[in-house]
Every structure is written in C-alpha cells, then in structure tokens.
C-alpha cells in the first residue's frame, strides 16, 4: 500500500512535468494553430542558462525565475524573427513545421557547442528533504512540483478567462481576420503567446534537470510524453494538457508498480491513448467543432 501511494505521488510529479511542457504546446497550438517541435529544445536551452547562473552562485529560485524570463524573450524572438516570416497567407503550414524542426536541431546542436556534452547537475528547487505522511515518505521536491503545476494551472485559467490578454489570445485562435477587424494587433499577441509557452517550458526544463543530468537531450523524451499528454487531453485544451499529463505520469508509474509489462511502461500509456482517441478523436477535453450555419 505504501509503495502504491508512493508510486501514485511520483506519478503526479512526473505527470506535472509532462503537463507543464504540454501546456506550452497547447498555448501555441491554440493561438496560432501550429505545433512547435522545438518546444522541448528551447526549454533545454533556457535550463542551461539557468544552470550557468546557479554555477555563478545565484540561488536556484532566482535562476529558475531568470530562466522563465529568458524563455519568454526567446519565445517572442523566435516568433517574431522566424515563425512570423513564414506565416504569410501564401506560405504552406508545412513550412513552419520544417522551421520548428530546424529550430529543434539548431538548439540541440548549439547547446553542446557552448556547454559541452558532459552532463551537468542542476540543483533541486525544493531541496532534498522529505516528509512522512502516514508511513509514506514523500520528497518535498515531489510535492513542490505538483504545487507549482497547480499554481500554474490556476494562473493560466485566470489569465485566459479573466484578462484582456487572455481574451485576445483566445480571439486570435478563434478567428484571425475578425481579430484584426476589432483592432487586435495579431502579430504582437502571437509573439506573447509564444513567449508564455516558452516560459512554462523553461520551468518544466529546470524540473527535469533536477531529476536527470542536464545534457542537450534533456527534453527529448519529455517532449514525446508532452505530445502524448496534449493528444490525450485535446490539443486545444489547456485543462486537457494538464489532465493528460497527470494521467500519463500516473499510468506510467503504476505500470512499474504492478510490474505486468516487463519494463515496457509505455505500453499501457499508449494503449490508453489509443482507446481514448478511438472513442473521442478530439481528446478528452478537446472541442469538436460546434457551429450552426
């Protein structure tokens, strides 16, 4: 039983990390209809920047906050300098897919060129302590990650539903031409969307780096899980990204607990996704088109 709870809570924490990166994917998909394959690599890059700050004696909290600011700036720059240049009405959406894959390779090559290929260790945001809850030992780090994700979700909800920025992000996602007609500066809003996405990505990057060595391949597996999370939850739903991430994290950990899959813990995860998509192709929380003409 203790082990079960242990695995469950571990699953929540791992899921929270997937969810965080998936949130970034969903924000970009919702506002611009694009999938950013470089989401993970941008997070890896900003995590290196945070690592440099820690290496120079800055506290982990400050370095993580700085990484999020870097992330925001990086996201805005990538959108303005690259993505926007390929987003004209005559450009094929495939061009942007290729651009983001190019970015993936760019950051993946740039990081070892700057920082070398040797793994770095990134300190843990919440220390190494643990608490005892009714016989179950839980790392403070685990609780911290789950707590940060919850805060992230609440902030996102408030931002999307109750601020003018959130409204304009939803508007641009819904109808770009009408957005311009009511006066939205679509370009700037898309850039802010990319900034926010890279910002939450940066946060998930530092979390991953506190669990495994920081190398240029830090986020590759996580990105795949994040894609799975967004697909499961529905690519246009921030709530879906979070729930999808948590489900995947928990199922993966539970598969280790029941030990039926001979180490192939991904198998039940993808079986689950397959079943959900067969029943609900738009994902758990994704919206099927509602319209009457």
């Amino acid at each position, binding site marked *: 039983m203790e082990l079960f709870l242990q695995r469950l809570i571990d699953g929540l924490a791992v899921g929270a990390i997937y969810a965080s990166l998936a949130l970034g994917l969903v924000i970009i998909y919702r506002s611009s209809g694009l999938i950013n394959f470089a989401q993970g690599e941008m997070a890896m890059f900003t995590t290196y920047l945070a690592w440099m700050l820690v290496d120079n004696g800055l506290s982990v909290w400050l370095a993580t906050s700085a990484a999020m600011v870097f992330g925001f700036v990086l996201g805005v720059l990538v959108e303005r300098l690259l993505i926007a240049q390929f987003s004209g009405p005559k450009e094929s959406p495939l061009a942007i897919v290729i651009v983001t894959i190019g970015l993936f390779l760019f950051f993946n090559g740039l990081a070892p060129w700057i920082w070398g290929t040797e793994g770095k260790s990134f300190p843990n945001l919440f220390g190494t302590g643990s608490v005892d809850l009714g016989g179950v030992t839980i790392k403070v780090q685990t609780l911290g990650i789950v707590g940060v994700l919850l805060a992230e979700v609440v902030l996102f909800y408030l931002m999307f539903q109750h601020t003018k920025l959130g409204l304009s992000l939803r508007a641009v996602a819904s109808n770009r031409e009408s957005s311009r007609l*009511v006066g939205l500066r679509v370009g700037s809003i898309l850039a802010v969307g990319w900034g926010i996405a890279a910002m939450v990505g940066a946060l998930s990057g530092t979390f991953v780096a506190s669990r495994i060595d920081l190398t240029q391949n830090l986020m590759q597996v996580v990105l795949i899980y994040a894609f799975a999370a967004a697909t499961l939850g529905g690519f246009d739903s921030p709530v879906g990204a979070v729930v999808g991430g948590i489900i995947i994290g928990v199922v993966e950990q539970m598969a280790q607990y029941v030990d039926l899959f001979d180490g192939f813990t991904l198998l039940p995860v993808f079986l689950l996704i397959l079943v959900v998509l067969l029943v609900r192709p738009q994902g758990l929380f994704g919206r099927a088109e509602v319209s009457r003409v």
Partner: protein
Amino acid sequence: MSLLEVSGLHAAYGPVRVLHGLDFVVDEGEIVVILGANGAGKTTTLRSLSGTIPVDGEVRFDGAPIAGRKPEDIVRLGMAHVPQGRGTFMDLSVDDNLRLGGYTRPVSEVEEDKAHWYEVFPRLAERRDQAAGSMSGGEQQMLAVARALMCRPRLLLCDEPSLGLAPLVVREVFERLAEVNQRSGTAVLLVEQNANLALGIASRAYVLENGSIVMSGSADELSEDEAIRRAYLGM
C-alpha cells in the same frame, strides 16, 4: 466634407482586377447602400475600405487618408466592418464577442456599452454565456452588428447582412440597423443584393456592376428607376 470620401478606388486579387476606379461618399449619420449582383465587387469594396486587402486610389475618412493602413488601425479611427459571413468568434461566448468588439475602448466604457447593446438586442442577453457559433444565423448577424458597434464607430460597414437568412429575419436585421442608425447617429455603408429592403432604410444608393459604379441617386429615385426595378427588385 463628407465622413467618407472615396475616389479612384482600384483593387485586385493578384492579377485579377476587381474594382475599376470607384468614386462615392458617405455623409455623417446617413445610410448608404451599394447594390450589386454576385461578383460585382461589393465585398471587395468594403474590404478595401477597412484595410483587409491592398488598394490603389484615395480613401479619406474624416478628412484623413486611410488607403493602405492596416485594419487594426482603421478601426481605431472609428470605422467598423461587419464582414461577409459575419466574422463571429464561433467558439467564444456571446459576451466575449462583445468584449472583443470593445477591444480598443477603455474597460469602463465596454461594460456600459455591453449593457446598452444587451438592452437593444435582448436575444443576445439571453445567450450571453453561450458559444456564439451555436446561435442561429439571424442571432449571429445581430451579434456581428452589436460587436462592431461596441467600438463606438462613426461609420459601420455592413457586408450583405441578408445573406443566408430567412426573409422575416432579414427584415428584422434591417429594422435594427435603421434603429441603431437613428439612435446613435452612426453612419452605415451597406452592400446588398436585397435591393428592396436595403433601399427601404437607405437615404442614398449606388449601383455597382463589374467593379464600376454605373448609377447613383437617392434611394427613392433608384427604387423608381425602371432598370433597377427589373434588375434588383424583380419587377
């Protein structure tokens, strides 16, 4: 000086020239209709005024040249465009659609204006939390008009509000447009195929054929005109 002065307006989609030098004006507070058949260039005319497509020629709004400016800047000058097909934010709520209409205005005014338009269009008030795309065509057309009016425009461009609506609903939409025009003094430039109803609320009209204005006059004159009656009124 008129509110909107257009002279020598040309527009093209790539190599296809659609407008061949239009001249027309809209005065403060009046309703003007541009009549034309499918493909005459009605939608293109409005799109070139609101900056949605590139244009050649002179467009003056309130005396200032606006040809070549972006839609997001033109709306700030006080010209709102209800595009063809209404341009509803389908998956957003009715309330969010109205808030977006007031995007360029201070928040305090937006709340006030929303309350006002909910009073004018009570059906929208009933459906304020519903996704706009789930409403009927007529309701969506009302929403599109209310959304455009949220920016307190001096000129409202309206692209075929009758399109795809049942005759009774069309009548209601036109009545509402006339009412809004009278109450708020917002000038309206309407492009339509439905000459009957449009001429009923307009003070002046132009007839657009193959990208050129071939006739103009007061709404009364045009509804008496033999050629117009045959071509657009089905008589």
